[in-house]
């Protein structure tokens, strides 16, 4: 069994605590133990940067140092957390003075940022460390007939120094969806349009205009659902899309670990699919919402 440090960020709180259970089980099925690093904190959500960039570097150096102390790499299951952590790593690895300054602060807690831990985003980890073949073998409920639009989200594509996929032609999700027996739809209008998540609390109107673009394009291209490796894109496409357009226009979105869980044979509730605001009951497989 492989083992990796797990960074939870703010994704698994509120109504979403179950998402972590799903993730943990899926990874364990795939031969990876997620060691939850309980002391890690919110990355600042690319927002504390507005108050104090240095603080963002400090708290994320701390987050990384916590993994390093246990001798583990860090697995991050959110695009934005990934970007913020990777930007910190990039800054500290390229600026010894900054690293030394911050290490002085971390020393109080007995921590040190060394730069030895690799920061993995969920998607490349699944592709490179787990491997498509292994995933394929574990599939118990192939997604036959599912037409699935792949949606990568911004923060694993840009900026360049932290991108984990080809920024101009991202790949990997399609291969994964095919491995699960589904039919990936890669090219559709709006596939590269931002989900709008981060503008919801700065300018709601813009956010609600953005969030419908990818779903609308996906629908036109014949997709029934969207799949994304980012829990924030998922939340935007689930909650904000629900506010932004009429029922018949809505396209349900699924967070990557959920669809993995479903294809690996978990019941829809265990996979987290029954908790969605935009229910999966109108698609051909018909997964009714709970309750």
């Amino acid at each position, binding site marked *: 069994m492989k083992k990796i440090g797990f960074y939870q960020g703010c994704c698994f709180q509120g*109504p979403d605590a179950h998402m972590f259970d799903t993730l943990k089980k899926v990874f364990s099925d795939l031969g990876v133990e997620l060691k939850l690093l309980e002391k890690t904190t919110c990355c*600042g959500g690319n*927002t504390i940067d507005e108050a*104090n960039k240095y603080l963002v570097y400090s708290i994320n150096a701390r987050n990384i140092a916590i993994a390093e102390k246990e001798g583990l790499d860090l697995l991050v299951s959110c695009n934005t957390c990934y970007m913020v952590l990777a930007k910190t790593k990039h800054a500290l690895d390229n600026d010894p003075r900054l690293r030394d300054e911050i290490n002085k*602060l971390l020393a109080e807690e007995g921590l040190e940022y060394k730069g030895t831990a690799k920061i993995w985003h969920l998607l490349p980890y699944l592709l490179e460390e787990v491997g498509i073949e292994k995933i394929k073998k574990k599939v118990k409920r192939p997604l036959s007939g599912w037409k699935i639009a792949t949606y990568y989200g911004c923060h694993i594509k840009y900026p360049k120094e932290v991108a984990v996929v080809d920024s101009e032609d991202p790949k990997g999700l399609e291969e994964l969806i095919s491995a699960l027996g589904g039919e990936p739809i890669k090219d559709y209008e709006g596939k590269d*349009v931002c989900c709008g998540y981060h*503008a919801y609390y700065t*300018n709601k109107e813009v956010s609600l*205009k*953005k969030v419908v673009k990818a779903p609308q394009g996906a629908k036109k291209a014949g997709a029934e659902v969207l799949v994304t490796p980012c829990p924030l894109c998922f939340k935007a496409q689930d909650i904000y899309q629900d506010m932004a357009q009429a029922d018949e226009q809505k396209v349900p979105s699924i967070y990557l670990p959920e669809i993995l869980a479903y294809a690996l044979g978990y019941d829809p509730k265990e996979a987290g699919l029954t908790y969605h605001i935009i229910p999966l009951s109108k698609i051909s497989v018909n997964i009714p919402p709970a309750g």
Partner: protein
Amino acid sequence: MATAGKEILKGGFRMSQEKVVLKVYRYNPEVDEKPYYREYEVPTEGVQTLLDALFYIQENLDPTLSFRFFCRAAVCGSCAMKVNGISRLACKTPFKKLVERANGRPITVEPLNFLNTVKDLVVDHDKPFENLKKLQTWCEPKQPIPEKEYRVSPEEVKEYERPTNCILCFACYGSCEAVMDDPKYAGPFAFSRVYKYVLDSRVDEDHKRQMVKNAMEVGDIWSCVQCQKCIYVCPKGIRPAEDIQNVRGKAAEYGFKEYPGVKKVQHFVDWVYATGQINRLALPEEVYGVDPTPLINKFKERGAEVWEVPKPLPGLLEFRDLILEVMKEKKPHLDIDFHHVRRIDKKVEEIFKADVCTKVVEQFEEQREDFFSRFWKKISEFFGAR
């Protein structure tokens, strides 16, 4: 077709027989009813940049094709266009790489997004230039004007070196997610420029404040979705998305507390200090004054367990120390609101005492005394230091 490039391109390149198709956007508003695309075959070898490829077309295949250029060296900013959907400077884009990437498919060349077409690949720059003026991005000198000159330290110059390099090519504007959905949005480059003047010690303080206010009210800076595309496409390594974060921080520092975005940052700073986490269920209330109960109920109807506040992390006190230490050394744009933190603390204690997380409560109980004495010590230190 003959490869007659030899006398056409500078430096007398030898052209290969192999060709790639360029699918080029054509539109002359004076005669064409609507835009159309024309395909041209361009040799794959011997053409250095995309700009060279356009010259090849103009001089060998179609003299009516219009595009803008001047310096040919990524300095003047006039040749930005969209190549396979991505904003680039034609003179800085190696043709070979485009050909490799195209892998036999046509390469699409179009004018920048969100700007009016003058003709073909030439766009009208008036709007973004106008936006700069509206934001008043210029230097109103700080008074009194020194007799000899303003002294500027090298460290200061380094701070705004990056935004100073902007060549106003508008590649960022043509890629911007906020421009796409908010016609009022001034554009990434415009806010980088605001930030540059805000950092400049020679600029009058009132004018800085005015520029930040303009950025919000005239330029809609809060519409930025932080997609980072502007950073990706900028040919000069400017990082507008991050400059935007700094201008927003300045807005908080100047006390523009009524903006949702400022309330959002306050939420992040306070909750992360208080619990190590933000609280997504408290955001609607704290930013928009909207009761989140209907949404929470939807999740409950679906059987989801809902946590009202995030579980405080183990080692919270050390984490708080770290935050206070950092804030003491690097003055933040926005301070922690300790009244808010106290309210959060109370809520956390109420909930976790009565609820699941006994571990945390125990830890709280054990450290309670220690906690409060350290807490107040830190706060007095913190304020004492300012």
